[in-house]
């Protein structure tokens, strides 16, 4: 272990859940495009849902990752006001989820494994999105992803916000950076509803157990990727480490996968089914 890692481990107990929420949202934290830039060569971005429009909050394309052609999907916000307007602060509309679904089908057709990067505060809650079926679009993306016949590695790199994050998260492996968060609702929304005051987001974040360490403990994620220093302080190093971990998991999945072998495809889908099938906290009285 490097001294950096040891130092980070010692510093960790001081970080509250809300601190991690803020780190996950920090300006300068690497986003999907930063991962694409450093990890994916010959990337060709593919646009549009073929129905209504192109959503710049959820981007996709084909490229070469560590010797393999892959399909990449990920949320992307902006780094300044103009970009944030163009990318709707990384909150996808129905056309974003429909683009994702189209590209998942594309990946299946051409036997391209899928890498997804999760970084959104949630699906767009606007009038137009409701008119175009935001709920249906997310549901369709989930339905497609659970049955897509190629391996999928999902990494939560920043904020995993509710259904908009889940829509492209049904991977065979779910990885998560140490200072990323993944939540059923934003701590602010939870506080607004249950505390009647969004300023109690810190309390809500704590009790909602949104951190990678929590989700690792619950067995919901497959790997917690340590951040030697918060990702925004060492963006390129973080991206490289994440790339290594994705490669490790993708290698494992691809070693056992043969798209021409029906039994192999069935095994992939059965394992994916079981992965989500077992998640829950209940007992029989």
């Amino acid at each position, binding site marked *: 272990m490097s001294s950096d890692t040891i130092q980070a481990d010692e510093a960790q107990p001081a970080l509250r859940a809300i601190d991690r929420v803020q780190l996950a949202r920090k300006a300068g934290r690497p986003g999907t495009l930063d991962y694409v830039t450093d990890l994916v060569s010959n990337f060709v971005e593919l646009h549009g849902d073929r129905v209504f429009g192109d959503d710049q909050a959820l981007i996709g394309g084909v490229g070469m990752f560590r010797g393999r052609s892959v399909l990449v999907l990920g949320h992307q916000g902006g780094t300044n006001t103009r970009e944030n307007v163009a990318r709707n602060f990384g909150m996808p509309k129905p056309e974003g989820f429909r683009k994702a679904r189209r590209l998942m089908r594309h990946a299946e057709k051409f036997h391209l494994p899928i890498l997804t990067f999760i970084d959104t505060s949630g699906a767009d809650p606007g*009038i137009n999105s409701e008119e175009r079926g935001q709920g249906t679009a997310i549901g369709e993306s989930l339905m497609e992803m659970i049955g897509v016949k190629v391996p999928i590695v999902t990494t939560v790199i920043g904020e995993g916000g509710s259904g908009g994050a889940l829509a492209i998260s049904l991977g065979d492996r779910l990885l998560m950076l140490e200072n990323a968060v993944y939540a059923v609702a934003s701590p602010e929304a939870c506080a607004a509803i249950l505390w009647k005051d969004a300023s109690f987001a810190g309390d809500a974040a704590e009790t909602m157990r949104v951190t990678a360490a929590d989700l690792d403990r619950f067995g919901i994620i497959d790997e917690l990727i340590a951040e030697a220093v918060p990702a925004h302080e060492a963006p390129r190093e973080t991206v490289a480490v994440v790339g290594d971990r994705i490669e490790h998991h993708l290698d494992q999945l691809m070693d056992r996968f043969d798209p021409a072998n029906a039994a192999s495809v069935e095994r992939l889908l059965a394992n994916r089914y079981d992965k989500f099938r077992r998640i829950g906290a209940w007992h029989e009285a």
Partner: protein
Amino acid sequence: MRSFFHRQGKFRPRSSDEGSENQAIPEDLWVKCPKCEEVLYSRELEQNAQVCPKCHHHHRLTARQRVATLTDAGSFDEWDQDIVPEDPLAFVDPKGSYADKLAQTQAKTGETESLITGFACIRSRSVALAVADFPFMGASMGSVWGEKMTRMVERARDERLPVVTVNASGGARMHEGLFSLMQMAKTVAAFDRLGRERLPHFSVLVDPCYGGVTASYATVADIVLAEPEAMIGFAGQRVIEQVTRQKLPDGFQTAEFQLEHGMIDLIVDRASLPATLAILVDHHMGFSPQVDAVDMDLDLTVIDMPEPLPAQRTGGNGA
């Protein structure tokens, strides 16, 4: 009409006492219809499946009331009622712990959770049926919902039964954190497998249906039906107003709005729902629809379809 929409606009997907207005109405009580404000005799409302005899407003039903109005008397055989929730996060909010909230809600509603599942007959057709209970924490979807739904769908697949779900929800249950969100994945996965066996899923969206349920299995069913004027959406109206700072259009997120925007197949009156589902089961399970059977009490004119536009009458003749 305006006052009705105004009332609905105040709907918040929170887990307090909402929806209690229609539950457990004592016998011999007068109730006021929230839409037409007519004072109604509760027994009359009960006999009319909680549909206002004056203005036709569909009052909300508890899960048990729904089973009673939808299925053949005595046919419902409940499954997995022993599956009960846990408090995996040790969740606390200003009102106390989730564990206490569950105990209180269970005592108040008489239900163990917000979803009941089982076998039922609808006009003599065998189905696997899941019904959400809105009075139970706003029919929020947590681990028990996901597990019961998944077990039901898996059993339907094994026993080759069509599936009917009646969906109301305020969204995923925050008190179970990411466990709740993951139930969207789990239920969708089960329905995906059901579909691969070419067994149909008929989803009925009832007032109100929001959040994670709308964004998972409920809207990607083979056929999506809705009750008249049911409020259906992904984001709640208060959230949309806060984020967009725009006035929401009249009729926004009603079943009629969803039909107009192509998101649902059909709006069906409560009285016509059993017959409609029976016909749909027949068509999709390879049975010959018994539309002429007297006991079906079928009146397709009750099914609320908009008048076709003149262009549709004359056009579309490809022959």
